[in-house]
């Protein structure tokens, strides 16, 4: 259980538990990708700034505070970075105080120090976040190979800020490389090498406080897989930190982003992060190109999700309306409760505003991708596909769930699963269009249902809610041969044909033809809607449909003439 110390308060000086004479000023920010939390510590010997943050104003605020406490008592200043990602240090590049090692000495783990000294845009994530950095002089390289052969031997180092420190190398019981830094007679600072989120990640400890950088987020979508991320190292580091906490003496864990947590809560979180990290084998590197690709998919995906959710909500409102007309107010209210329309509208609107702003300001792709991830995480919790599928077309909820899941999969650094298999296209299409033409609950089903009210109501809801897509149009399906077998992802093909049919029906086609032909080694699926008005489907959702067709195993084209619109899907490699 946590220690008995009072929780830390942001923007206020308070004692460091377990470190007599040390005081801490935490600057806790709302979580974002722009800037980290900062922690300022003062002892009689030294002033330590841990993670000055990514924003100039934040670093300026801290510089002012440092000036104030130096006026009270002049002491050397050290700036420790838990790792060299720009959201933890970029702000210092705009503040003169941090440019002079005579005033502030930067202390970074060796790999991060090397990246900062040469202005490396990859390891610092500057490239990913569309920022430029200037090289930074790092006077104190932490967990340096130079000292690795001097275990338990104190080494003294002098710096241009006037400080003389003693560093003693060691290893924790959990296997983490460790350095103890003594600045004088006051409390020491322990540094633990905890790579994984980045090769230079460190945790720092003073008394009962453990500063952990970004390890809590290291397995998160959109973070796992960034340059320098290492799954095996992360798991080893998590194991090492857990032992550190289990050994006791740590009251609070101070993350790089978000609120301070008790050591007990941190232990629980580390267990969950370890499980997440274990599942992240072979994820793709999250670089600039991948961020652009993910952001493009995010926008396509949200466009479709928006449409599907609006249709699903509309269907439920329609069912509820009809039930109310039938005098079944209670059932109508129950149906309305099945989807949180307001919540969903607000989430989708939040993403749209964010995306608009992103395009206006030529924002960074990874931010848009992460925003979509955040919105999708909440959307997934706003509807229950299984419940909805009793009343409205299950294909709507299934497609929405697949889209959300595919996006999360991509954001996590994996490819959405694609299951290519042999498929008789004739039978597959026949079965699909039959399902879209016949009501799932016929008049006979309704009339022959037993007398129990609940059974009748359930069937009635289905009858009202599940109107077959093709029920109001003249529809024909013809295949040139009895069997045409190709290798496709059947679920993707089903979704693709359904999206296209919805577009044709929704834009006013009064007749739709579906034809399946063979062209040498290719199958050609043609969907033509007569009377369909001009549609934005290919302009707005074109990328989405093209990508879906590609995943299906084919290529898509669309043409419009005075009589309607035609989609052609070419699937190669017939069997």
């Amino acid at each position: 259980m946590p220690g008995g110390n009072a929780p830390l308060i942001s923007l206020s000086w308070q004692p460091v538990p377990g470190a007599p004479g040390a005081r801490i000023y935490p600057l806790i920010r709302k979580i974002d990708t722009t800037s980290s939390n900062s922690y300022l510590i003062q002892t009689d010997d030294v002033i330590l700034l841990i993670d000055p943050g990514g924003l100039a104003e934040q670093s300026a605020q801290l510089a002012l505070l440092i000036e104030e406490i130096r006026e009270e008592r002049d002491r050397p200043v050290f700036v420790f970075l838990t790792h060299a990602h720009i959201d933890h240090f970029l702000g210092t590049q705009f503040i003169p105080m941090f440019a002079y090692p005579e005033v502030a000495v930067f202390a970074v783990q060796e790999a991060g120090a090397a990246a900062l000294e040469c202005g490396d845009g990859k390891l610092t994530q500057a490239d990913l976040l569309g920022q430029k950095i200037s090289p930074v002089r790092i006077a104190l390289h932490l967990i340096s190979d130079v000292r690795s052969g001097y275990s338990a031997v104190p080494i003294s180092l002098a710096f241009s800020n006037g400080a003389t420190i003693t560093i003693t190398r060691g290893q924790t019981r959990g296997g983490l490389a460790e350095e103890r830094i003594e600045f004088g007679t006051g409390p020491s600072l322990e540094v633990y090498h905890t790579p994984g989120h980045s090769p230079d990640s460190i945790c720092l400890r003073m008394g009962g406080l453990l500063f952990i950088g970004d390890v809590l987020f290291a397995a998160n979508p959109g973070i796992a897989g960034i340059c320098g991320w290492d799954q095996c190292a992360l798991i080893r580091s998590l194991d090492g930190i857990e032992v550190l906490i289990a050994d006791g003496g740590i009251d609070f864990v101070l993350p790089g982003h978000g609120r301070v947590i008790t050591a007990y809560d941190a232990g629980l979180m580390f267990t969950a992060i370890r499980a997440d990290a274990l599942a992240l084998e072979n994820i793709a590197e999250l670089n600039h190109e991948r961020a652009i690709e993910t952001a493009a998919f995010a926008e396509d995906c949200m466009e479709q999700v928006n449409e599907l959710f609006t249709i699903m909500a509309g269907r439920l409102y329609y069912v509820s309306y009809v039930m109310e007309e039938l005098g079944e107010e209670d059932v109508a209210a129950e149906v309305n409760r099945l989807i949180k329309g307001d919540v969903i509208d607000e989430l989708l609107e939040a993403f749209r505003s964010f995306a608009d702003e992103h395009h206006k300001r030529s924002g960074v792709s990874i931010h848009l991708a992460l925003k979509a991830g955040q919105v999708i995480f909440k959307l997934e919790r706003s509807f229950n596909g299984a419940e909805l599928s009793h009343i409205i077309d299950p294909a709507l909820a299934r497609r929405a769930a697949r889209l959300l899941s595919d996006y999360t999969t991509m954001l996590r650094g994996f490819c959405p699963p694609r299951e290519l298999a042999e498929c008789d296209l004739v039978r597959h299409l026949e079965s699909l269009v039959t399902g879209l033409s016949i009501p799932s609950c016929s008049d006979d089903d309704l009339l022959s249902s037993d007398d129990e009210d609940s059974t009748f109501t359930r069937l009635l809801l289905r009858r009202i809610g599940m109107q077959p897509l093709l029920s109001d149009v003249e529809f024909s399906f013809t295949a040139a041969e009895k069997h045409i077998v190709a290798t496709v992802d059947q679920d993707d093909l089903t979704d693709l044909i359904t999206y296209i049919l919805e577009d044709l029906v929704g834009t006013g086609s009064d007749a739709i033809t579906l034809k399946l032909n063979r062209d040498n080694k290719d199958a050609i699926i043609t969907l033509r809607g007569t009377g369909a008005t001009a549609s934005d489907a290919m302009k707005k959702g074109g990328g989405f449909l093209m990508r879906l067709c590609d995943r299906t195993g084919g290529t898509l084209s669309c043409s419009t003439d005075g009589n309607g619109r035609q989609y052609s899907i070419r699937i190669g490699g017939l069997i």
Partner: protein
Amino acid sequence: MEITKTNRDGAIILSVAGRIDTATAPALEQAINKEIESGNRKILLNFSAVTYISSGGLRVLLATAKKLKNPGDKYALCSLAAEVNKILKLAGFTSIFSIYPSEGDALAGW
């Protein structure tokens, strides 16, 4: 979102332009309710300049249908953009109220 009101052949025509979303749907509902409360029972919504409708917007359309169902009441939509028409069609709303290609068609149909 902008709403322009005109009176034609005894019907109130509310021409809506822009997005009907969480933020704007209440304003549309207010504008419609104001007409109904003033005793106007023939209302045509011209959606030719509506670019998007959210589920909140759909709810407003249904709420209006509930209010205008007495004998002699008239309620319809006209001139829908393809994407908005698609949402209404797939949500099943086309069986609750009529959708016409133009104002002229709607008023002639009444």
